[in-house]
């Protein structure tokens, strides 16, 4: 069985140290996946997995993902909130693998919110 070795970690450490100091915790975008019971039951884990794959594929280092609890709109799960630095947060709902990939490319990388999937822009309250 191939096991995780100290050497693997050391290699990554050396490589990352070079770029790490440049960003020093400065993130451009934060994506929050709502991971309450309702979100998980609706497929939030697959949304997070898809996002992590996209981030790794795009090779971006200034985008972080995190999770939060239920936002009170259980019927619209899976949901995510995308926050780009100095821009109003955008909440998306009824997500699928395909939609989140589109949102990642258009909004997170491109800077243009995908309005057709957005539940609310710029506020935590919804209609």
């Amino acid at each position: 069985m191939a096991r995780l070795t100290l050497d693997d970690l050391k290699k990554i450490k050396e490589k990352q140290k070079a770029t790490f100091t440049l960003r020093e915790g400065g993130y451009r975008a934060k994506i929050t996946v709502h991971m309450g019971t309702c979100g998980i039951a609706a497929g939030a884990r697959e949304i997070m997995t898809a996002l992590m794959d996209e981030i790794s594929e795009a090779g971006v280092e200034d985008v972080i993902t995190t999770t939060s609890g239920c936002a009170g709109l259980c019927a619209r799960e899976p949901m995510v909130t995308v926050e780009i630095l100095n821009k109003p947060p955008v909440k998306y709902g009824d997500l699928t693998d395909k939609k989140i990939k589109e949102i990642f490319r258009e909004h997170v990388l491109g800077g243009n919110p995908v309005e057709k999937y957005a539940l609310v822009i710029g506020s935590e309250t919804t209609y």
Partner: protein
Amino acid sequence: MEDLSLHILDIAENSISAGARRIRIKIIEDIKKNLLLIEISDNGKGMDREMFEHACDPFYTTRTTRRVGLGIPLLAQAARECMGDIKISTEKGKGSTITATFQYNHIDRKPLGDIGKTMIVLIASNPDIDFIFEHKKNGNSYILDTANIKKELDGVPINTPAVIKIIKDDISAWLNTTDNMIE
């Protein structure tokens, strides 16, 4: 919830909300004893008497965004559907432990599901929390402690994609071995 790995993710999210710094997820598949045991323990803020007494009540929740809290009741239902049960122990200020047992070969027992995905999502989304994943199956065991990995990384975030990838590969390698194990 489709499978038990999603229940585990859900219960671990409770631990995160409770401010846990360390979360241990233990899975024991004891086929000889026909037992599956899942235990999630944390060092979060624990529950007081009222919360503990209501933990299995779906119409009790600490949140204010909605009026129901289904995480623990759903896990309890999943366990009871296959002759199992859940047990909660908690101490205010110290942490909580939830243990669910299942009859391994019961026709209604949900499959374990992709526990690797659950662990990766937890580890990558909560870099400040230490996760211990322990899995035993038929005398073989696997343990992953992110605190040890962090020590070796010396300040490089654990959620760096390259680090997440080797953790993912490590868990997958273990799961592949257990899947091919002769029972």
